[in-house]
């Protein structure tokens, strides 16, 4: 409510949150305990102190007494989450972020915290989807452990996991090609690659993969290919309920299963052949 009356203050508060991390480590006036200087976050430790009362305020008022102090990252997180609602209309742009900021009662200048190409918004969305997928898979696993659900065969599990993840794109499908191209910008590739690989690793983990040899890589490479190609097919799919996409997915997963069966067969055939040759060599030498 205060923000509506004093719009400039909101921008200030947003930027105050921006500047706050350095203030975070100042001593509170009443705290006489030993100083804690964190030049850089010590590895493995979490900053423990939290200013309880008003932090050094640029507004000259009591500060945000009603709100808990939040870090810059949490604020960005909230803005981006709010902005997602406006993506179908505005695309992955600063406009969507500005609209999102407005719904939080912040000034549209908050969009200035982010890149104009919407990179952070897209990465945030992908990260949120991955988190949702992990939770879904974790809950599924709990049900199986409790005996309330059947353990799925691998191909069905992979298929369902990829489908669940791709379905999260449906509300944004119109603008997703734009997002994909932004994710491929050199600047974003490390982040988008990390998000992709950790998602694929998660799916395999919950599928029960326990490989500790080169299979670890083969499986993830295959699943990544399946995911990426299915995603591309989905972009161009106009069938009702994306049934063409799901059928494509089913076929690709089946192909992968066949390939792995063939590989196993080739290996055992190879081993048998080697054994035969060794036997022949021993016979001949005798």
């Amino acid at each position, binding site marked *: 409510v205060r923000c509506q009356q004093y719009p400039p203050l909101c921008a200030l508060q947003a930027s105050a949150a921006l500047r706050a991390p350095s203030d975070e480590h100042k001593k509170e006036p009443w705290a006489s305990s030993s100083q804690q200087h964190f030049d850089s976050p010590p590895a493995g430790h*979490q900053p423990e102190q939290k200013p309880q009362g008003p932090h050094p305020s640029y507004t000259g008022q009591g500060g945000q007494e009603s709100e808990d*102090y939040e870090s810059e990252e949490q604020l960005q997180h909230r803005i981006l989450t709010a902005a997602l609602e406006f993506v179908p209309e505005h695309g992955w742009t600063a406009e969507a972020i500005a609209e999102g900021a407005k719904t939080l009662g912040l000034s549209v200048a908050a969009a200035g915290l982010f890149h104009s190409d919407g990179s952070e918004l897209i990465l945030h969305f992908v990260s949120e989807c991955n988190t949702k997928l992990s939770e879904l898979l974790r809950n599924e696993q709990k049900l199986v452990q409790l005996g309330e659900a059947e353990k799925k065969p691998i191909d069905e599990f992979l298929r369902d996991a990829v489908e669940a993840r791709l379905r999260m794109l449906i509300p944004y499908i119109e603008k997703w090609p734009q997002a994909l191209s932004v994710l491929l910008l050199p600047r974003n590739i490390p982040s988008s690659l990390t998000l992709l690989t950790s998602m694929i690793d998660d799916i395999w983990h919950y599928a029960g993969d326990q490989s*500790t*040899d080169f299979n670890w*890589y083969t499986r993830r490479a295959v699943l990544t290919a399946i995911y990426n190609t299915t995603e591309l097919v989905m972009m161009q799919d106009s069938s009702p309920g994306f049934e063409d996409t799901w059928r494509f997915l089913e076929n690709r997963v089946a192909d992968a299963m066949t390939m792995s069966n063939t590989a196993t067969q080739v290996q055992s055939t190879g081993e048998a052949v080697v054994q035969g040759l060794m036997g022949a060599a021993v016979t001949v030498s005798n």
Partner: protein
Amino acid sequence: PGAGAALRPCSSRVAQDGINKPVIDRIIRVDHAGEYGANRIYAGQMAVLGRSSVGPVIQQMWNQEKNHLKRFNELMVAYRVRPTVLLPFWNVAGFVLGAGSALLGKKGAMACTVAVEESISEHYNNQIRTLIEEDPEKYKELLQVIKQFRDEEQEHHDTGLEHDAEATPAYSVLKTAIQLGCKAAIFLSERI
């Protein structure tokens, strides 16, 4: 003392139960690679010297390495660590080193064992230091495993010395070369 929970930046990766994931990742990956390589080395040695008088000695050491590998396989799955990409390479290189050193004779094989086990013991000691510096309580189980394995590798080293490893022709050259290779293997397996 703040009543609020400690703030963690949203983007930080949530570690499994608050462990230092990058450090543990490296440790388990390189140890797994090491035990895998050691297995292959002994396999190579057995292929050449299996029927000789040192066969049983090598076989016994090999069996212990197999147990080590099994344990690290379990740890790898438990901590969700990625194995090193170079595993197929260590597969071949290890076997070639074992077989090659065995072709130099029983003493050659023992010299190889001494060199490798010395490298591994030193490497395990470094890891024990690292983990103790981090948090001995949190990593108690891992520390126990590594300490036990280090002791067993040290035994292998002593066994190798007992079997006249030092009498190998060009012993110090051989030993230095092998240890250099081990250092390179450790460096690479930690990272890729």
